[in-house]
């Protein structure tokens, strides 16, 4: 049992700074997204000369949601990568410190998945006029949220620590493998009801790419800071529980 895994590490000294930096950077990205980035083209309308440029499409404001929606979505998936990684480390070493990290990573992932849904649904509402559609991204994230909830239910179902950690690690790995499969399958199967239309995330003009990357950086920093904070609190709880048990034994 590695004691070091249970204590705050040197990284934690920088966490407040990282959090503030993340908040500032995402704020900057937010401002840029609304000022500098151009509106995206929607449905076609009769062309008109506006400010010296020929505009032939309706300009969509709701696309601005994407500047935060995609970063939080990617952050949640990155968090899942860590869940699987720490799951593997636990299975290799049987050290509970890794299991706490896996659990914390999943918690952070859930928070960001909720953020993804919460931004995705208004976007869908405005683009397509419906509150929900079984399109790849929303569906995959719904399934992911259900799997993360299943992960936590699985953890509470076992009181034996070794079983709980092993099963949770295995399920965390399965979750991580299933996520891209779910996304690919829902994207590749032609759906007869909803034409799958995607904003081309590749080939963004620099006007939009810069705010997007700034938001991405800011949100990832925030996610990391939140992970460390939650980890510190979880480790503290774990150490206190162990102290209680030891005290009981000594009495």
């Amino acid at each position, binding site marked *: 049992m590695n004691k070091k895994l249970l204590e705050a590490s040197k990284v934690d000294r920088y966490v407040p700074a990282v959090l503030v930096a993340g908040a500032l950077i995402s704020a900057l990205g937010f401002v840029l997204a609304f000022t500098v980035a151009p509106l995206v083209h929607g449905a076609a309308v009769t062309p008109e000369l506006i400010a010296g440029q020929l505009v032939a499409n309706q300009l969509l404001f709701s696309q601005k949601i994407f500047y935060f929606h995609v970063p939080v979505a990617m952050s949640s998936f990155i968090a899942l990568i860590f869940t699987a990684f720490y799951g593997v480390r636990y299975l290799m070493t049987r050290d509970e410190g890794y299991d706490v990290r896996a659990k914390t990573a999943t918690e952070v992932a859930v928070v960001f998945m909720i953020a993804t849904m919460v931004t995705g649904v208004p976007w869908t509402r405005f683009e397509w006029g419906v509150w929900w559609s079984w399109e790849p991204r929303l569906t995959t994230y719904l399934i992911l949220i259900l799997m993360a909830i299943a992960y936590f239910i699985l953890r509470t179902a076992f009181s034996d620590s070794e079983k709980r950690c092993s099963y949770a*690690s295995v399920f965390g790995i399965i979750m991580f493998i299933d996520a891209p499969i779910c996304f690919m399958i829902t994207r590749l*199967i032609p759906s007869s009801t909803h034409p799958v239309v995607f904003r081309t995330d590749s080939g963004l003009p620099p006007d939009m790419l810069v705010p997007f990357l700034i938001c991405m950086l800011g949100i990832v920093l925030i996610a990391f800071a939140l992970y460390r904070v939650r980890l510190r609190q979880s480790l503290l709880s774990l150490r206190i529980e162990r102290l209680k048990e030891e005290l009981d034994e000594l009495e």
Partner: protein
Amino acid sequence: MTGKVSAFKQFKILLGKDLRHEMRTHEMLTSMGLYAVLVLIIFGVAFAQLGKAVDVAHLSGGLVWVLIVFTSLLGLGRSFSYEKEASCIEGILLVPMDRSVIYLSKLVSNLIFLSAVEVIALPLFYFFFMTSVAPAPSFPYSIASVVLGSIGISAVGTLLSSITVNARSKDVLLAVLFIPVVFPLLYACVAATTAALVGADAWMETFRTGVLLAGAYDIVMTLASWVLYDFVISA
């Protein structure tokens, strides 16, 4: 018995044990079969008001998979329960063998039981709901998607039921873990099955994509479950 027993022989013995147990008690087949028929009855109630106006063929792909998923949840839940009651698992673990042999034998036995129930339930489904229209000529292709889906369901389900057999609320926990994990497979299989059953234009496109994706899912998840099974059964 002298010398080491080969892995294949171990596999055959374990599989034989499950099949013989089933032959003697008929526990799984009767409960799964009855459950499948009951699900069909519920479908009947659900569609009682539809009359001839709705083309059930379009729904049929999805309905078949609803049937299969719920029936298999029942079967998977029970596949380990009798062993747990008799504490067989500890006994099996005492034998020095590769744990994946246990996984494979359980996978195959679950698959066999699921297929046996499907052989009864699917024609019944057809008899109850699809005789109002002539079947599309592409109809037999749906068997391929059913087979692939069943393999994937058994692969993932065996792993997950080994996890949940030790918990208090086994059945609910199994459903909660199983359904999200299996969702992509279902998505692909429903698309392929519906395409084959309806036989509309360009059905082969959707069918082929669905079948390929289901196959890919099967390969990936079976490998993952195989590798992870050791950690699960030894916990």
